[in-house]
């Protein structure tokens, strides 16, 4: 409180004027919710002389929806909490226009917790409310766009599934035709062309299988499993033999210690391991062998494939198992970038997980599948 004769540069506040002409509308309501005091700002916004507002209720100054919400929601909240904040309502002015406002209120209570009166502060919020309404409209539009995009993308995946399926028939015809030609006497050039054809057909069949697996995974049916309880070693040995035959210059060392039969889909696990081994042979250092290991511990099966060579860049690690991911695309690489994605889906279908670590020493992919009641059933 400034003393009389104190520093004239100290401005004192006129509290009466602050109340009447504040940049807020103020009203005070009695326990029966009638208004007993209102400031000039509020009366001015409403277009009524202040005295005509005395004895009325705040709810009577609202639009009908506002009245209903005030009585059913806002008034109970005020009574229960002693306050409410940032409630958006529409006032109706003397000209019948809507005045969008935000309202805060606090209750004054006596020693028994009964309401004595309530103080209400009102701030105009026309722009803010229309901005919110606009935002709401945009959110709805964005949701609609997303929904339609998802629909389109699902259609696209269905199309891929159907296309993949339908490509198998003409491919089977080509395989049959090649087989027929082989039974006849062929020139040396003819035999060479037939071999090329058969290799291309194999590769195309592989691509179609990948696309079909991918589409099935995306369409929600997931990778279908045909589980059987069988020994793991023959499954792994066959995959290793196939790859060593196709790349005789490379060595794959095996440490397989899973003597007991386990419940897996042998075809799918073979597909997964074949994929990991092929990747390791392609990307690993050709001077070092690729290593394959399998072990059971703590009710889990672990199968790992490791190779030496340049590590996978951290950025690529993040997206390794995403579909159509191909890292740095090199001319030598062909395929769709679905291999690791499908391998990871196969792991998931078994209730397990496929993970990767990569550093200067080695790059290692590990398949972990739970065994026992859950995983083995």
């Amino acid at each position: 409180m400034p003393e009389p004769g104190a520093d004239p540069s100290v401005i004192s506040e006129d509290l009466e004027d602050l109340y009447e002409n504040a940049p807020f509308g103020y009203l005070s309501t009695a326990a029966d919710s009638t208004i007993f005091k209102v400031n000039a700002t509020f009366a001015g916004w409403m277009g009524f002389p202040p005295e005509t507002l005395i004895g009325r209720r705040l709810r009577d100054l609202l639009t009908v929806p506002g009245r209903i919400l005030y009585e059913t929601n806002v008034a109970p909240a005020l009574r229960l909490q002693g306050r409410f904040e940032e409630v958006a309502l529409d006032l109706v002015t003397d000209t019948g226009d809507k005045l969008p406002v935000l309202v805060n209120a606090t209750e004054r209570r006596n020693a028994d917790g009964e309401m004595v009166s309530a103080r209400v502060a009102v701030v105009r919020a026309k722009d803010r409310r229309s901005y919110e309404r606009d935002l709401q409209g945009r959110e709805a539009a964005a949701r609609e766009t997303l929904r339609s995009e998802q629909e389109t993308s699902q259609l696209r995946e269905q199309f891929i599934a159907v296309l993949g399926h339908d490509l198998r028939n003409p491919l089977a015809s080509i395989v049959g035709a090649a087989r027929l030609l082989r039974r006849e006497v062929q020139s040396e050039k003819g035999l060479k062309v037939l071999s090329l054809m058969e290799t291309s057909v194999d590769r195309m069949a592989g691509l179609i299988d990948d696309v079909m697996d991918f589409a099935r995974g995306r369409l929600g049916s997931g990778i279908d499993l045909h589980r059987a309880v069988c020994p793991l070693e023959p499954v792994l040995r066959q995959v290793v033999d196939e790859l060593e035959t196709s790349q005789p210059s490379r060595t794959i060392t095996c440490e397989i210690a899973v003597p007991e039969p386990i419940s897996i889909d042998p075809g799918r696990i073979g597909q997964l391991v074949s994929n990991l081994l092929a990747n390791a042979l392609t990307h690993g250092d050709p001077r070092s062998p690729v290593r394959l290991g399998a072990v059971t511990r703590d009710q889990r099966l672990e199968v790992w494939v490791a190779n030496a060579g340049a590590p996978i860049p951290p950025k690529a690690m993040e997206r390794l198992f995403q579909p159509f991911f191909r890292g740095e695309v090199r001319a030598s690489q062909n395929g769709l970038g679905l291999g690791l994605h499908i391998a990871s889906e196969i792991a998931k279908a078994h209730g397990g997980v496929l993970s990767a670590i990569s550093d200067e020493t080695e790059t290692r992919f590990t398949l972990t599948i739970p065994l026992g009641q859950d995983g083995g059933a």
Partner: protein
Amino acid sequence: MGCHSGVRVSAIKRNNVRVRGSGAKAMVFAHGFGCDQNMWRHVAPAFETDFKTVLFDSVGAGGSDLSAYDPTKYATLDGYADDVIEILRELDLKGVVFVGHSVSAMVGVLASLKAPELFSKLVLVGPSPRYINDDNYVGGFGAAQIEELLEFLDDNPMAWSQAMAPAIIGNPDRPELGEELTASFCRMDPAIAKEFARATFMSDNRADLPRVATPTLILQCSDDIIAPLEVGHYVHSRIAGSDLRILAATGHCPNLSAPAEVTAAIRAYA
């Protein structure tokens, strides 16, 4: 192990049912549109010495299981009435005194028609069988006004959610609020609130009133714009043998604005 389809969530969990007090008879408190069971916090404790008190949140409100919300089931008040019956059956209660506020007064009426053995008395606080005026019937609102309410809820989800879930800020100089500040009141999922508003304000249960056979007390507030005096008289005239008590309390929520008067009126009847 695993999920069995068709397993029902317990109604006690779904509706966040709270049972307190002791007594041979039970008194059930049902909250109306816009709040949750906290609405009865100044009334229900007064009955705990003589009654087993049962409070619950309707699905979508308070601590109810939001995932149990089924738009088809709850499109009309019937779905809410079925929940009341399920709660009472799960608690193995019969012949209860049902105290329903606002829309839940009609929910109680419907439940008593479906399973009369579960109810011994109905106390309807601010009941309305229809909010929209119709020929000679005064409900309090024009059809266009209710339409305007539903549109307002569509256009103003933010306004709505602010009203639904006001920020609660610590208030050390008001120790009596201490307990209340730990929970937020009248929380309601905005999307569900919109549908609940539709089910409430579009309802017409006038034809059900003459079928009520359970002894009924109507507590009518003075100056209630949601359920005006005419509506209280209408409900009284249509339920044979019902009692009508006009409260001095004003507004739509006498359980909050005048809990002592409401408590006394219920005690005198129950």
